[in-house]
């Protein structure tokens, strides 16, 4: 009989190393947080009125739809996939909603209908990706063409929305004090984020999402429902895009088939800057919120600056994307 002794206690050097390694996964999120704080501090130091609470709240108000869309994208990217269709689905949602409302349909019918439409589109893309093993990039590209094409077919012009419910939702302000308020969209987007974060952290579905991103083959051999989960994340992203589209139509009070061009890029950028690994398996929804805030803050600073032109937003976002992708690369390479 072999003498089985308890393994020697982990040497302290190894333990320290492990703590470092463990913290390394938080590096991107912490970097984003630090960036956000620095940017805010720079804003406060340089521009008058930047420290108003409403400046921060406006970032949420102006980006509520992006937050919802990016939340859906976070799920997809965590599995190691990508969803290029989100901007087009937002546009389709606003167009369909505006058209139906214009035709006199009740908001109580239109709202669930457009949400269902986005969800079904997502489901379809997920099914194609899973069953036919088409690359997510291509399947959602087709979805993007399809959604944008249908939207353009329905109406090429901007359609104003005058429905009572829609205008109420658009104009309703939740006030915390004089001049300090948020819109209903902000509440909805935060609820979505909270639910999403809960699902990711505390449900079997959420953990399976991470497992697939870590290694889909392993997940399959561990007996996890890989196919079902993969279809579900694209369905979820479809739903989030549709909901984002509804919020967008609140925000714009209109529907337009050319809305949200390039929103998929903003959503992906927010997710990446928020520290989610593009290869999947690591990151938090909280990080995505930070990512959206960074994008919003860049715009705010450029607006406050006055002399800087709007295109700097894109360049700065590109630079940040580069920095965070290289950072991710360094982090994953070293932890291997």
């Amino acid at each position: 009989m072999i003498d089985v002794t308890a393994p020697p206690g982990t040497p302290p050097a190894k333990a320290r190393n492990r703590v470092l390694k463990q913290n390394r996964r938080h590096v991107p999120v912490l970097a984003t947080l630090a960036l956000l704080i620095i940017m805010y501090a720079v804003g406060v130091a340089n521009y008058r009125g930047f420290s108003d609470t409403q400046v921060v709240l406006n970032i949420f108000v102006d980006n509520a739809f992006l937050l919802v869309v990016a939340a859906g994208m976070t799920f997809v990217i965590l599995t190691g996939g990508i969803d290029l269709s989100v901007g087009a689905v937002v546009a389709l949602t606003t167009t369909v909603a505006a058209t139906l409302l214009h035709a006199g349909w009740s908001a109580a019918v239109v709202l669930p209908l457009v949400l269902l439409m986005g969800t079904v589109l997502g489901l379809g893309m997920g099914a194609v990706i899973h069953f036919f093993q088409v690359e997510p990039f291509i399947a959602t590209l087709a979805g993007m063409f399809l959604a944008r094409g249908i939207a353009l077919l329905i109406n090429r012009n901007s359609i104003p929305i005058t429905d009572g419910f829609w205008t109420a939702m658009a104009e309703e302000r939740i006030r915390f004090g004089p001049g300090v308020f948020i819109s209903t969209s902000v509440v909805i987007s935060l609820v979505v984020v909270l639910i999403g974060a809960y699902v990711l952290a505390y449900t079997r579905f959420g953990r399976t999402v991470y497992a697939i991103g870590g290694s889909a083959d392993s997940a399959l051999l561990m007996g996890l429902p890989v196919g079902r989960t993969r279809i579900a994340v694209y369905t979820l992203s479809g739903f989030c895009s549709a909901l984002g589209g509804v919020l967008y139509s609140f925000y714009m009070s209109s529907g337009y088939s050319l809305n949200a061009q390039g929103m998929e890029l903003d959503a992906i950028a927010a997710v990446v800057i928020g520290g989610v690994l593009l290869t999947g398996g690591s990151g938090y929804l909280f990080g995505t919120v930070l990512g959206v805030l960074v994008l919003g803050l860049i715009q705010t600073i450029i607006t406050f600056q006055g002399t800087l032109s709007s295109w700097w937003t894109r360049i700065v976002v590109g630079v940040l994307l580069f920095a965070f992708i290289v950072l991710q690369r360094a982090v994953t390479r070293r932890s291997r």
Partner: protein
Amino acid sequence: MNFVRHRLFWPAAILVALLASNIFFSSGFFSITVHDGHLYGSIIDILRRSAPLILVGIGMTLVIATGGIDLSVGSVMAISGALACLLIGDLDNQNSVIGVLLACAAGIVLSLVLGIWNGTLVASIGIQPIIATLILMVAGRGIAQLITDGQILNVTSAPYKVIGAGYTIALPVSVLIAAGMVAIAVVLTRRTALGLLIEAVGGSPTASRLAGIQARRLTIMVYVFSAICAGIAGLIYSSNVSSADSNAAGNLIELDAILAVVIGGTRLTGGRFSLAGTVLGAVLIETLNVTTVSIGIPVETTLLFKAIVVIVLCLVQSAAFRAKVLRRPSRVGASA
């Protein structure tokens, strides 16, 4: 039978069908007339409009053949056009041929630098192509706007106008430029060993390494070539409209280019590529655009057609789809 099974049979058949259908809507579709020694007619017009897409498409073909993808082509088009227009606008005499040539050269050189950037990110830092080129895709339009100071730069340069809208030896200059670049690409890949090495790297990176192929240098080369092609396409586009519009130039062209490559029979996973196929694909896409106009349906609906084409092509290329739906054993399946 053999001829039906040729890789390019179906795209060619669709192209012929599309062209033929135009006869019913405009009887003079196929007539080519000669004015001032220049050829005019719908066919010539389609070719002229296809030129930028052909250019971007052949660059994309080589990138895809190595197993990569280049999302930044649209941004590169915008940057190159912007720089050329800026320099021409600064000329004392906008009609100076040498000045215009230098401006164009500057645009192309800048594109080359951008190609080195993409190639380095992919080949040396080892970032996934889709992500690496996403950075320039996002930042590139900002850079273009930075160059033009956010304006649409108009130029009134006769020599510059020639590139996109002029004629020489009876044919549009843009078509000749595109044909020239196709010829260069064909010679580069098929008269040297470049094509073989690219196909080997795309087909099996490991086997290629063990056969002594230096994938890194090849990879940087194809991204540079793709960027140069995009840069020239950007010159043609901006010359045609006599201005640099940082938002409109090359908008969504990366998707059309990928589509042209796929229609042309090059697989997105890399390996065997067909430049002729891509040219055919690009012409097919432009014919589709022209046909929808001549039939009288809104031009935006071509997006729907493209969606359908992408879906059908991807499904047909998907081994899983063939196995599940067509129930035809794939001819490829010899590898266990």
